[in-house]
């Protein structure tokens, strides 16, 4: 689940103007966030170039997108380019199914804490593959500290607030407080070894692909 924002007009207009455009919007995560008004404004600027516009949910599902594209194949054939309003996954699926057609995205994608799971949260998981939470009182230093420090505060916190984001609490002070509460401050004395970045490549590639 990802969040999309409209790209700056000056970045996208030169690529798509004066083309016969077929527009696909994905409101699949609408209840999460879809910049509906911005999309409308953007599309209005392109009015004359548009030869078709559809709103199709779950562009991230290849099976659905295949059906959609078959259903709208005539119109898409007439189009010179397809403009997609969706997260990066949706755009990649559409363009992989329309290899011969220039497929453009009008959106930038970002991610909000917690979407890895189900709901937007105040905490996040960095998919490090070597969970450090046992040493940090259940507060993740990778996602809560902008420097991702593993061995204690950088010393830059002022009044318990992070120097990078003064609105955020210093993760390491939170960790300290949490461990103090449970009488486990001793844990902090352990020197944690640096992250193993190899895991990111090897372990994400070893994910099982299930046939259906």
């Amino acid at each position, binding site marked *: 689940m990802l969040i999309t924002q409209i790209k700056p007009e000056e970045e996208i207009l030169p690529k798509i103007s004066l083309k016969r455009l077929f527009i696909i919007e994905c409101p699949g995560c609408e209840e999460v966030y879809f910049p509906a008004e911005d999309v409308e404004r953007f599309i209005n600027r392109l009015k004359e170039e548009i030869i078709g516009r559809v709103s199709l949910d779950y562009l991230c599902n290849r099976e659905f997108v295949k059906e959609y594209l078959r259903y709208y194949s005539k119109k898409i054939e007439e189009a010179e380019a397809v403009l997609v309003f969706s997260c990066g996954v949706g755009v990649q699926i559409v363009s992989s199914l329309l290899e011969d057609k220039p497929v453009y995205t009008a959106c930038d994608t970002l991610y909000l804490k917690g979407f890895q799971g189900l709901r937007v949260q105040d905490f996040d998981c960095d998919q490090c593959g070597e969970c450090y939470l046992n040493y940090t009182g259940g507060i993740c230093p990778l996602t809560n500290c*902008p420097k991702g420090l*593993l061995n204690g505060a950088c010393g830059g916190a002022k009044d318990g607030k992070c120097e990078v984001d003064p609105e955020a609490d210093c993760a390491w*002070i939170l960790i300290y407080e949490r461990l103090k509460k449970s009488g486990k401050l001793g844990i*902090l004395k352990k*020197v944690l070894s640096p992250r193993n970045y190899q895991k990111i490549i090897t372990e994400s590639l070893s994910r099982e692909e299930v046939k259906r």
Partner: protein
Amino acid sequence: MSFAEKLKNGNFLITSEVGPPKGVNIDKHLEEAETLKGKVDGFNVTDLQSSVMRLGSLVVCHLLAERGLEPIFQITCRDRNRLALQSDLLSAYILGIKNVLILTGDHPVLGDHPEAKPVFDLDSVSLLKVASTLAEGKDMKGNELDGKPEFCLGAVVNPGADPLQPQLIKMEKKIEVGAKFFQTQAVYDLGEFEEFMNKAEKFKVPILGGIVLLKSAGMAKYMNDKVAGVSVPERYIKMMREAKKGERAKVSIQIASELIKGMKNLCQGVHIMPLGWERYVPEVLKASELIKKEH
């Protein structure tokens, strides 16, 4: 006597700082440093201080060493991954630079290239450990090195941090992995510093109290607002505010020397961060009665 030997002897140590320029004109910095020859025991050379792109720390250390000055190579984890960090430590040794001060480093969003990718592949504790490992003739993966480097490793601590205990725990960790001396964040409150020293004493590692020369009342207030662990007492702010423009340096020197005199009985040295006022360092030392005899 080298910095490392003086550390071992338990001398009261004085270090100053060289901030490399943004650009390539380094002569002025070197000249200023040379005026302190024999007066201080080492020069920290900062590593892209405040995440601002500048001339590199290693090359300036080398230039200082060439002039017979003792550099302390500051190295941060902000810009290099573990390969580059280890390699730069070896390079430093080859250039005769053995004193290394290891820090985590500021975050790039606070500097002049906020779009930069923050690296922080290692942190200060793990880099200290890696440096110690190198000195044992192995890289961090345990591969043998061809020849062993030697280092005198230092680290930083913020005595004014609130809460302080996590800082102390981290300090202990740093010692465990090889830190042989500490330099502190700027100290303005001797009472607070004494409390810190009482707690840190048990570690039996030399601590050099940090001195930042105040340039104005505004700077003091800014530091109170923004800089972690720094609290300039109202008395000093008042002194700076009431000083006439031409008198400010004099007042600043007076404050610094007052602090240094106070520190003499508390810690094992001072680290002066002049932030552009390098030229006043000799006067600070004189006023603090710290002018050393030529060795």
